[in-house]
């Protein structure tokens, strides 16, 4: 199966599912599908990295298998695990039923079969015969050792299980890795992936995203939100507002029935977009909101 026919096709089909792409994203997504290489997405939080994987799965009708990474993630959680309890039961049932007659090698062969295998996301994605999007979320949160585990999957699309042998992919999944770059990933992982840095969208695209994501928003407010968020990103803040946060903001304004984003409205709802006290202070100073505030404090 080809995932997308061309960058333009990728852009059109992703847009149809509600994910608005820019040129770079569309081209890279197309390439990831055509070259059958994993796609590493890096960028600040909340710019739509995870969302892109979901959009690909929606656009192509593939199922999304997700591996959420965290500190302490190990083989047993990422790849596969043997079901110890079931294996124990099996051994006990056998010895109980037929006495000592059953020899050990038969039992051994018996308990390391598919029946006792618990597949975790990576193995699941590889074994699936239907189209699959494999999302490995926040890779930078894992320990270095897990990257080693990923290498076999990412380069050869196979997993080696000592007792069963090598399981190779029947159909290569579309792999998306996301990272906030809180740790530098190893060269080995990067070399196997296509790389795309997702950044905040330009004003026009962000306005389109708002309009498509927030029903009932009128153009003027959308314009104002995008404009203010753009300003906030220019000031250097600890945590610049993400797309997700500007969408939240727009929703908040709708809920509060604010039709005009003036200084008072910004001051009142700034908490939706800025999550640090020092960022708050700085925004008030830079946007010159101070003039309207003293009366309220």
């Amino acid at each position, binding site marked *: 199966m080809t995932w997308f026919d061309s960058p333009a096709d990728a852009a059109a089909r992703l847009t149809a599912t509600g994910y608005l792409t820019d040129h770079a994203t569309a081209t*890279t997504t197309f390439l990831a599908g055509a*070259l059958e290489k994993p796609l590493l997405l890096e960028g600040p939080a909340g710019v739509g990295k995870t969302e892109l994987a979901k959009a690909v799965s929606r656009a192509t009708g593939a199922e999304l298998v997700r591996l959420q990474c965290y500190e302490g993630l190990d083989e047993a959680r990422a790849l596969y695990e043997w079901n110890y309890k079931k294996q124990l039961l099996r051994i006990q049932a056998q010895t109980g039923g037929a006495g000592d007659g059953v020899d050990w090698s038969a039992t051994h062969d018996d308990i390391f079969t598919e029946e006792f295998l618990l597949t975790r996301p990576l193995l699941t994605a590889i074994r699936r015969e239907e189209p699959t999007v494999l999302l490995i979320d926040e890779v930078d949160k894992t320990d270095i050792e897990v990257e080693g585990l990923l290498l076999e999957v990412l380069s050869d699309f196979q997993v080696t299980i000592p007792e069963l042998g090598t399981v190779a992919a029947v159909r290569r999944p579309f792999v998306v890795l996301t990272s906030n770059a809180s*740790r530098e990933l190893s060269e080995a992982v990067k070399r196997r992936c296509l790389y795309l840095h997702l950044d905040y969208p330009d004003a026009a695209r962000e306005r389109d995203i708002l309009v498509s994501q927030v029903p009932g928003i009128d153009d003027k407010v959308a314009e104002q939100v995008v404009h203010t968020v753009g300003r906030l990103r220019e000031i250097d803040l600890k945590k610049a507002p993400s797309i997700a946060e500007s969408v939240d903001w727009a929703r908040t304004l709708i809920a509060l029935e604010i039709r005009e984003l003036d200084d008072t409205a910004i001051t009142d709802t700034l908490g939706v977009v800025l999550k640090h006290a020092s960022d708050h202070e700085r925004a008030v100073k830079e946007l010159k909101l101070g003039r309207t505030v003293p009366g309220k404090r």
Partner: protein
Amino acid sequence: MAASPSPGRERSGLLDRHLAFIEALRGAGLSVSLAEDLDSVAALGLLHWSDRAEVREAFAATLLKKQAHRTTFDTLFDVYFPPLVGDGARGSGAPGGDGGGDDAGEDDDAGPPAVRDNAAALQEFRDRLAEMLQAGEYDEAEMRQMAAEMIGRFGAMPGRGPGLSSWSAYTALQRVAPQELTDQIVAALLSNQLDEDEATRTAARRIGRFTRQVEDDARRRIAEEKGADHVADVTVRPSIDTLAFTSARRADLEEMRKEIFPLARRLATKLAKEQHAKRRGPLDFRRTVRASMATGGVPLTTHHRPKRPHRTDLVVLCDVSGSVANFAQFTLLFVFALREVFQSMRAFTFIDHVHEVTPYFRPGADPADVLADLAASTSHAALWGRTNYGRAFTKFDEDFGDALGPKTTLLVLGDARSNYSDLHEETLGRMVSSVRRAWWLNPEHRRNWGTGDSAAPTYAEVMPMLECRNLVQLEDFVHRIVGSAPPR
């Protein structure tokens, strides 16, 4: 015995150019492996060559693996795969296809441009430029065309000797002076119902962009003339994390400052992980037995008691004289961004007098404010106005000697240029012997140590001195003092 690779086949020059581009990327510090190189070729095979933006993204997706390298990548891409050829106008029909770097003959054929550089032409051009920059929306292609025209007309320096480039962005920018158009553009934008701040910012942004395009265009023309490799060697700056503090320009400093916090965060994560990994202490018998219930009493996983984390007291002594001011600010800011990995931390600045600056680094404070406060406090650190390391150390020993203790790590930041004054290295020696560990970070290249008034060799005998010229070296160093500190 294998025949030479298909001697009959014609070479388009495209492959050579591709390889030269890859070489240039490697030269600029990007690690491009053979596998990635092959990927990029495979990717290009799937795309239409006619769309330059697509080609650029395909290269970026396959070759680039770090956002910090993006600027370098873009510059080199423009040099090797220029958007225009020659003056642009005649090349725009079929911009592709011109292969190798040596088409020097082609450049001279156009002769003098249609309109020569004279006062009337300059005025006419400035008017058109102002008009374009004032427009509500502007498009990239038009701007690039304007930049090309500007270099072609006002940046040409024909008749220069061989080896000197005949295009200059500097000359063109001096002549046209787009900065002077600011007021005019602001006025026009104001009438476009933008408020004043906004208009000023927009104008500055547009002029900045245009200036960058003019510089790009000059680079492109020089590349056309002298071969891309030459330009790649000469004009491409190192990426921001390997750029030396002392040679950074204003814009670079701004970019570096933005890098400081992400860098500190990455380092903190790394350190926390490593400490976590090393934390495995003695066996926790109870937890191990309890966990073994799940596996029928077989202790498959063992649990351990955590070790007490080991932390560091840090005292930073920092030269803030003009020559190293940038370096000092970055280092202080970086070390303070890592506040949570040190148990306690005090910072002092000096020129010839010592001044404590710890209070400026309030938790959660805004880095820009902190830097401004630091700059303002510099005046306290100077009594006589000339760097004097000897006096500063003596002063520190007298006034703040109690800051140092057996658990302290002492960090001195400075270039050790002391204006030929008395060095008082024995005072520093006494300070060093009273602390657990001590390091001196010097922002100068090692080969310059000991030249002129540099007292680096003398001080290096008293305490270990390290070269620390850019963000990468700084990060490595902090990793060393916190991460792999062998407890003594």
